[in-house]
């Protein structure tokens, strides 16, 4: 657990408000809630300074009151740092991590496509993973969505 | 007149060629399967495939030139069937031998390739056009080595007729051994002509779907497949006549059996080749044809000229 604690300490050293926010449930797993305003700085620091340079994936989830985005990044020691940020449901805008991780395109497109988040700085040339003909405003991963709402929405068009 | 019609339509003409090409397709497929440790198709499979295709709907694409699209397969079939008439089957002579029939046969055999090109081009579909371009690119690569390798033995024999070549080597069987480099070149080039692995680039299904035949279906495709089967038999027969003109008994029935055995040997070699090799890329194919096959076929001609000079002397 030493390496994991060291990572948390370094982060807390660079960003004092993260002091005591991290959780290490099992070996090589760190969960950390990051405030939205410093999130980009934290992930940049983790990527460039702490060498968490592999983006495993980005999970987007609907936590009923707000949206939560978890950036799973790992380093060569096998430690996975799970950085969490929140966004309000009314205005779910987050920044793209493409400048840091080139492979993030599909993960961020997925957040836009099925959760309805808005990722600033992401090229808007394609839709993933839903088909191009998918109606606007239907985001299946939201808890209040059900296939019926899609059905009702389509009736006018068909 | 009746006899001529019989020759052309029944034996050894169209009907016989149809039967024997289906048989050789079966042999090819069975052998391919056995070399891959599989059971392979049952004996009636080629015929069943043919009949099934005939009974299927034939779709002509809207964009395609309808008349050419329909008529092209018949050309391919007719050209190969005609070429077959000039190849000796049961003796030293073909049915209608004349001086220069070797060249005529080779030219008849280019027609199917041209029809493949036209078929692809006039299909007006992306994959078919790509296939058509590949047909022509490949054609320019293998055609010269193929011609030179077949003309080498003819140069040595001093005749431009297939019957004449057969006759010459029948008289001097040992001399046929100097043509072995040419045989190897001819076998490779034949794979190119028949568009089989390693040179099945024009209809490589994992790359460009069906290549030239992408848009073909039903009876038009059946005719094309028939033409390719014909081509296999005619090319094998030509190679057998030019490179294996030995052990030809005077009894026509025995002679015919020997002819079949030779065909079998050539088809076996061709099948073995397509089992043992991977498909080449078009640039690798052209490199191989011009840098390996062409020099070897030139070498063959050189050898033949030298041997001819030695014999004359």
């Amino acid at each position, binding site marked *: 657990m030493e390496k994991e604690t060291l990572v948390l300490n370094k982060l807390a050293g660079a960003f004092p408000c993260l002091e005591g926010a991290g959780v290490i449930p099992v070996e090589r797993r760190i969960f950390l809630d990051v405030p939205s305003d410093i999130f980009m700085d934290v992930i940049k620091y983790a990527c460039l300074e702490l060498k968490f340079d592999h983006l495993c994936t980005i999970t987007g989830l609907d936590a009923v009151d707000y949206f939560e985005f978890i950036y799973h990044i790992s380093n060569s020691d096998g430690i996975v740092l799970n950085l969490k940020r929140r966004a309000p449901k009314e205005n779910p805008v987050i920044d793209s991590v493409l400048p840091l991780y080139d492979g993030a395109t599909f993960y961020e497109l997925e957040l836009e496509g099925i959760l309805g988040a808005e990722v600033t700085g992401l090229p808007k040339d394609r839709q993933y993973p839903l088909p191009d003909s998918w109606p606007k405003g239907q985001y299946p991963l939201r808890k209040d969505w059900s296939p019926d709402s899609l059905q009702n929405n389509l009736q006018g068009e068909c | 007149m009746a006899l001529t019609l019989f020759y052309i339509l029944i034996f050894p003409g169209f009907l016989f060629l149809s039967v024997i090409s289906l048989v050789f397709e079966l042999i090819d497929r069975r052998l391919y399967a*056995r070399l891959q*440790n*599989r*059971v392979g198709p049952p004996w009636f499979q080629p015929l069943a495939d043919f009949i099934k295709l005939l009974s299927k709907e034939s779709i002509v694409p809207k964009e395609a030139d309808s008349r050419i699209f329909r008529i092209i397969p018949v050309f391919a079939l007719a050209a190969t069937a005609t070429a077959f008439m000039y190849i000796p089957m049961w003796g030293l002579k073909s049915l209608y031998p004349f001086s220069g029939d070797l060249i005529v046969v080779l030219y008849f055999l280019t027609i199917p390739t041209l029809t493949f090109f036209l078929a692809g081009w006039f299909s007006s579909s992306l994959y078919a056009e790509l296939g058509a371009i590949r047909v022509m690119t490949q054609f320019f690569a293998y055609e010269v080595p193929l011609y030179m390798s077949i003309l080498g033995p003819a140069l040595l024999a001093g005749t431009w007729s297939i019957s004449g070549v057969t006759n010459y080597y029948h008289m001097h069987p040992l001399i046929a051994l100097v043509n072995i480099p040419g045989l190897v070149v001819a076998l490779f080039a034949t794979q190119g002509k028949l568009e089989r692995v390693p040179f099945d680039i024009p209809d490589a299904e994992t790359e460009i779907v069906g290549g030239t035949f992408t848009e073909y279906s039903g009876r038009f495709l059946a005719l094309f497949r028939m033409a390719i089967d014909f081509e296999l038999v005619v090319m094998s027969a030509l190679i057998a006549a030019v490179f294996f003109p030995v052990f030809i008994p005077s009894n026509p029935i025995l002679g015919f059996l020997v002819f079949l055995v030779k065909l079998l040997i050539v088809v076996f070699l061709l099948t*073995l080749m397509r089992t*043992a090799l991977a498909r080449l890329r078009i640039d690798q194919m052209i490199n191989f044809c011009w840098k390996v096959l062409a020099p070897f076929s030139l070498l063959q001609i050189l050898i033949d000229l030298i041997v001819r000079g030695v014999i004359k002397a």
Partner: protein
Amino acid sequence: MKSVGRIVPYLLSMLVKKPNTIMYPFVPAVVADDFRGALKFDKEKCIGCKICERVCPSDAIEIEKVADKQFKAIVLMDKCIFCGQCVDSCPKDALENTKNFELASLNRESMRVEI
């Protein structure tokens, strides 16, 4: 040593070997003893607890009461994914996987099996 046709000797050796494939519908295919095939239901053992209904990932099994302490199982073969979870979960071992896997049919109704 790179060369062309390295596989040829091996290929030729195949000519004298028995083929590895079989003519399937004419020659029966053999499956392992513990194969998870079509379900078998033993109505003597069933106590009607309906655990199988609840654990089934694809809603493929229904238990119906036919009389007092008498139950029948309706298996929807087209929905069943042959995971065998119902067999594992059954407290009385009333369900069992058989080795039967040849279940294809042209008719959807025949996929509904009552046992």
